[in-house]
């Protein structure tokens, strides 16, 4: 064996070792993630028969998904809820992340983060159900408001509609928004802020001109990490949404488990993913200047 062959073998072995090491996990993801996603993509172009799928290529499912009134309303509602939840979650989370990053002693930061993440790790179902208790006719909010005499009869617009879905989801995804923003804020060199002040800016303008732009990568990931999964949330609209709070996941579940119409369910799933991807890419495009410096 010549020396140069040995050297290329060495370089080859680095890549080969890496691929060998990743292969169990990659194979698993390929078989149970990529292949299934590809399958529903293909299914979405087929037609539902009574006992089996008819394997003819058709756009009919998509035409139905985009034209049928019910589907369109639910799709738009899902998108609207998701955007509202994202906006609410990220805006409400920013000051929390800012507080923990800038006003908490370094030694106590993990404790605060731990406190913030704990609710996230407790039974999702039960948490969602408890929002029903909080927002319900005899719930905490209504009892409280009646008790202090602010209202004469219980409020009904806070449960079994879009509002309750937004509130519940904003609660569920809070840590997802706080953590990326916190990480981005932590990375900001504190001397940049001092430089901003030193160059004559007020604290607020320093925040706008220095802190916020530098925190944008964190805000952007917070937006995506909240926006993408909330569109497809099933439990929350199911439990607190009522008939006018149903979202696309409920529709998909209905098609798959109740109506056994896999092609239609797949078309709805692919459409939902397509819309989410389009919005995410548009959002990334609009914020591209903040991401240039990032890796």
């Amino acid at each position, binding site marked *: 064996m010549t020396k140069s062959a040995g050297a290329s073998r060495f370089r080859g072995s680095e*890549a080969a070792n890496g691929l060998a*090491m990743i292969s*169990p996990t990659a194979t698993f*993801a390929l078989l149970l993630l990529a292949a299934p996603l590809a399958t529903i993509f293909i299914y979405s172009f087929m037609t539902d028969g009574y006992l089996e799928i008819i394997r003819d290529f058709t756009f009919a499912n998509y035409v139905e998904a985009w034209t049928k009134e019910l589907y369109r309303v639910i799709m738009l509602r899902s998108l609207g809820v998701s955007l509202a939840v994202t906006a609410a979650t990220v805006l409400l989370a920013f000051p*929390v992340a800012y507080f923990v990053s800038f006003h908490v002693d370094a030694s106590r930061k993990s404790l605060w983060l731990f406190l913030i*993440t*704990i609710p996230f*790790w407790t039974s999702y179902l039960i948490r969602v159900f408890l929002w029903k*208790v909080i927002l319900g006719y005899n*719930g905490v909010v209504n009892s409280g408001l009646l008790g202090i005499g602010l209202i004469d009869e219980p409020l009904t617009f806070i449960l079994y509609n879009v509002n309750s879905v937004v509130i519940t989801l904003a609660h569920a995804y809070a840590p997802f928004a706080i953590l990326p923003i916190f990480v981005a804020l932590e990375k900001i060199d504190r001397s940049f802020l001092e430089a901003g002040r030193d160059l004559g800016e007020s604290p607020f303008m320093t925040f706008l001109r220095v802190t916020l732009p530098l925190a944008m990568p964190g805000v952007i990931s917070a937006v995506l990490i909240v926006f993408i999964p909330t569109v497809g949330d099933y439990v929350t609209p199911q439990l607190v949404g009522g008939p006018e709070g149903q979202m696309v996941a409920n529709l998909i579940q209905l098609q798959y488990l109740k109506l056994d119409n896999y092609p239609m369910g797949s078309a709805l799933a692919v459409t939902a993913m397509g819309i989410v991807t389009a919005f995410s890419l548009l959002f990334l495009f609009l914020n591209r200047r903040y991401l240039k410096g990032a890796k």
Partner: protein
Amino acid sequence: MMKGGWFRVYTLGYLIFLYAPIVLLPIFAFNDAAVIAFPLAGFTTKWFTQLFDEPALRGALANSLIIAVSASVLSTTLGIFASRATTRYKFPFKGGIMGMIMLPLVLPEIILAVALLVVLLGIGVPLSLFTVILGHVLVCTPFSIAILSAAFQALDGSLEEAAYDLGETPISTFRLIILPLVMPGIISSLLITFTISLDEFIMAFFLAGTEATLPVYIFSQFRFPQAVPVIMALGTLLVLSSILLLSIAEYFRRRGIAKTGGKDTGGFL
């Protein structure tokens, strides 16, 4: 400190919002009324007593434990491979492969669930605990990788070289140096993925067939108002055990960072 003061007030308010549902849980678990509503009707422990007499619940709990143990072990194993590969080696298509593996972190679970359902039924795999385990491994692996990558990243590459230099083979180096140093990360990953699996609903709902897991059981009980107080009692116990598991996981994660001489940079994600 005035500025910090206002932010502190806001953050405490936010924490109240975060904890509001959880605080209600024990209140209704000990409330002597079949309806979950105010005003409260006195103290009782009967919901907890009923809880232990529920055979369907015990079955669901057993299923959930089997699934959670399997899923946490499998996803952590897959996580070890992936984290080691991504922190130690350069290889072609690294970004794409890692992107695919981490995708379940952002993808709506319902889409993963239906996709898996279609394929499993398509190739004739009957729905069972096993199919739920597969689904949970898919969901848990990205979390495991997030935790373990941090642990592997904290390893100084020269430690490994030092072990080779002192005569160890790659395998004995892994056993003597790498494994002990990432062990806290592994334990933390096991606990976190166990917790996620125990709480996961969508995958189980779609993939469990006739076998119920704990969340599926809970979900089914929500349809019967008279069953809800028992669920509140169950929820109280679940919350307590989650907090316990997470505290242990956090302890190991911090110990791991301390051990490798790194700096603590915050939470799990």
